[in-house]
């Protein structure tokens, strides 16, 4: 049983990495947001679903793998733009892992998703500020934070829906899958 559970987790992580990588690339093509370079953050939904169904390690792994693969597909691997997405994705996964441990709000997908989105923006702005070394970027911080709260709610709602629709497909301890 333990082996089957392990295998099922590995498959679920692989599927989530695939979904996250595709979302990561597709999001870059979606019509521009009100702030240049801002994204909806749907790739983060895969991280949150991984966190909820498998655990903290899986969430960090998915975010690591998807920013690496996304960078590879987009051709920005190891460049400054990759550094921004990589730092943002990993910081967001770490913060969501911590936020999910909170007593009252930790089980709320919208709250955890918003924490992830906010951390993502802050981490990216810090990296960008170091690259371009220009004070003008700090003027964008409140706008980006406000925007990421809105997109965070949206992504949280998506996660909520996915997690209720797929109770057995991704969950390791479900009885819905036959071994």
């Amino acid at each position, binding site marked *: 049983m333990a082996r089957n559970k392990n295998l099922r987790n590995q498959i679920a992580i692989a599927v989530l990495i695939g979904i996250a990588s595709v979302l990561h690339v597709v999001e*870059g093509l979606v019509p*521009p947001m009100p702030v*240049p*370079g801002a994204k909806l953050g749907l790739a983060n939904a895969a991280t949150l679903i991984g966190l909820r169904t498998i655990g903290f390690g899986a969430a960090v792994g998915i975010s690591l793998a998807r920013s690496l693969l996304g960078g590879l597909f*987009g*051709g*920005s691997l190891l*460049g*400054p*733009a990759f550094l*921004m997405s990589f730092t943002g994705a990993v910081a967001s996964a770490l913060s969501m892992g911590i936020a999910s441990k909170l007593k009252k*709000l930790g*089980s*709320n*997908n*919208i*709250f955890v998703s*918003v924490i992830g989105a906010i951390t993502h923006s802050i981490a990216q702005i810090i990296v*960008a500020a170091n*690259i*371009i*070394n*220009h*004070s*003008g*970027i700090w*003027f*964008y*911080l*409140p*706008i*980006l*934070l*406000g*925007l*990421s*709260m*809105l997109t*965070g*709610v949206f992504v*949280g*709602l998506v996660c*909520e829906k996915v997690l209720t629709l797929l109770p057995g497909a991704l969950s390791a301890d479900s009885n819905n899958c036959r071994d």
Partner: protein
Amino acid sequence: MDKKNNIWVALIIILLGIALFVGGKVLLSSRKAGPKMYATVYSLEEAGKKLVRTMPLGDGRKQIYEFDGPLGITVVEVDGNRARVKSSPCPDQVCVQFGWLAKPHDFSACLPNAMMVTIEDGQTYPY
């Protein structure tokens, strides 16, 4: 987590988000242009940014400048009191989306083509 709780959490966060977004926009639009403005182009190098060219704004002429980056040529347009990245060889086009730059601290950065355009008033160099 029950549905009612979700609605409240979402509502509070959305209101806070809108307030921050609008407040940020107001902050951005509250900056005032100085008497003499410049558009400055930097190349972003690993050691830091390097000044490439400073172009005065406000002489009422429309001018096109071309700058060579690792991916190709970034075209910068200066038109009266404002400047913008007109075209760029980068895949994401974020630098073009920044649009017209006219106030101090306005900037447009292109990480793939390692190029940055900023607006400076010739007095404050806070960096």
